[in-house]
């Protein structure tokens, strides 16, 4: 049975950490002030705008300690990962979930944070939030629907997303717990303790900057690891800035995915606004959703 952390009320505190890549403090300011405008207090971890001079926001020990402290802090109601990059794989097996399980709170992020979201869902049955991170708050429009979707999600307002129809969509209706995230990291987690079971679930995938042949290879890995066999539905987000080899692969990311799942009959929705681009709606992992893919109408609702 899935546990949903408590939603946030005005005055609650959101903890900000960088569990993966480095992020300069000036890139986080807009996020902090917007969250404050929304009525929250913000607690900034040591890894945000740290003194680190390499790729990471700190050593493994530092990143782990910061994340652990925020997860265990009684005053913090949600932990927002300021950015992804790479790094959660290195610390996920060392996180202590004892206190977090007793007092679950929302863990928010995407991209590399997929590892943490998948890990929490598959091991502890606690829902998490796949949503925009600090960088998205640098958008001039602080009221854009993607940031608002994050706000609504943490406030506990039920969401219903209407999406444009897509030529490749496969009609149908699916009800199930929502899982997913970055395709490369979902594939990377297969066979590890952070691997997610997909039976009866609605899976969403997105990725950035991948070679088309590699997207194909990852889809084959998911398929060969039986991730599609008993899936209830598939949501395909943005595959932004995909790269191609000198000899063209001959298919777009969408065509690759369409073909990879052609032998199954679950509904499939393409072009869902979940991505590394601006279009990135908040999605609650582990929460039950209904996906309706019709000819002219596509709806994903809690």
């Amino acid at each position: 049975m899935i546990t949903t952390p408590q939603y946030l009320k005005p005055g609650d505190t959101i903890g900000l950490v960088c569990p993966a890549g480095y992020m300069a403090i000036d890139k986080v300011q807009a996020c902090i002030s917007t969250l404050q405008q929304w009525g929250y207090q913000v607690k900034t971890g040591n890894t945000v705008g740290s003194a680190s001079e390499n790729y990471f926001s700190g050593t493994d020990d530092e990143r782990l300690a910061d994340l652990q402290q925020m997860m265990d802090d009684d005053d913090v109601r949600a932990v927002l990962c300021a950015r992804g990059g790479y790094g959660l794989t290195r610390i996920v097996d060392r996180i202590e979930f004892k206190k977090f399980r007793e007092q679950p709170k929302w863990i928010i992020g995407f991209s590399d944070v997929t590892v943490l979201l998948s890990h929490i869902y598959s091991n502890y049955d606690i829902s998490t939030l796949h949503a925009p991170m600090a960088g998205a708050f640098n958008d001039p429009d602080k009221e854009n629907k993607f940031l608002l979707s994050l706000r609504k999600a943490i406030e506990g307002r039920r969401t219903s997303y209407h999406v444009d129809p897509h030529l490749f969509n496969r009609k149908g209706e699916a009800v199930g717990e929502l899982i997913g995230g970055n395709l490369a990291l979902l594939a990377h987690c297969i066979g590890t303790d952070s691997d997610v079971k997909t039976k009866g679930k609605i899976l969403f995938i997105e990725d950035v900057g991948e070679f088309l042949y590699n997207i194909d290879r990852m889809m084959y890995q998911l398929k060969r690891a039986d991730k599609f066999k008993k899936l209830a539905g598939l949501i395909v987000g943005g595959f932004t800035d995909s790269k191609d080899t000198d000899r063209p692969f001959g298919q777009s990311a969408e065509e690759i995915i369409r073909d990879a799942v052609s032998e199954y009959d679950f509904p499939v929705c393409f072009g869902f606004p979940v991505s590394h681009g601006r279009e990135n709606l908040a999605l609650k992992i582990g929460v039950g959703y209904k996906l309706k893919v019709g000819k002219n109408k596509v709806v994903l609702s809690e």
Partner: protein
Amino acid sequence: MNRKNFLSSIVGLSAFTSVKTNEEVPGIPIIPRYLKTGDTIGITSPAGHIKVEDIEPSVEQMKSWGFRIKIGNTIGKRNFAFGGTDDERVKDMQMMLDDPSLSAIMCARGGYGVIRIIDRLDFRKFQMKPKWIIGFSDVTVLHSHLNKNLGIASIHSKMCNSFPDDWSIADEMQKQTIYSIRDLLAGVPVKYPLIPSPYNKTGVAEGVLVGGNLKTIESLSGTASDLYTKGKILFVEDTGEYLYSIDRMFWNLRRTGKLIGLKGLIVGGFKVKPDDPGEEFGMNLQTIVLDKLKNYKYPVCFDFPVGHQKNNFALKCGARYRMKIAPQSCTFEEII
């Protein structure tokens, strides 16, 4: 074979190779028959496209060793980056697997594509009369699949696209690595030139050799071709990856249980893609590897001459080897 029979054979195979058991076919490795003068080697392209003229140097060279060559239909075929459609590549490889007149199959090149066809290949005839399958990089899928499911040895080596165009001006290293394929096919032991690395971990290990391209190994996790490493010597190599990505892949090996219980680890060539400015990873390859081996005591050998590089010597996946890593000298030899 018609499609219906073909499908039922796949069902039979998948029942036999059930996914995620993380077990392997027990018993001693099956070594295909070594080649004699007059034997035939088939050439096929299960992954990327290659032009007919680009395999000519390899055909000439292997003929000069006294072998006959059979060129498959996928050579010269092209479907975008692939050496033909999936159907064409399956058909060509299947024909070669089943052809009793062939003693070995050399994959003309790697690229990408074996994973798309591996589950459609029927290994029943091949299993009755095993032959050498030769290749590396994307062909790691075949090595791992054969090792896990059938226990049949195969050759990890350069392919047709790495034979020098003009043998008379080829350098010594190029010749030696190509000759190492011939030697393995003939059952002659190969001497590997090993230069001790200060990062090596000393020790002696004996075990069946498995491995190949690291990225490809990661993409097999959780599938019917997943590499089983327990009690074995594992070798890995890769090219064109960022350090962070190499780090993530070694974490994948560790987190999927592939580093625990190894007899030994061999790290081949890693052509590292330089970090982007401002994104310095802060660790080198050796540190990345050793970082994942804390608590493990087995020997580790860096700079092994295998990979996407000139000094890429032929190795027998699935055969037993002994590695001796000492501070001043390293040896690696097949146990015959």
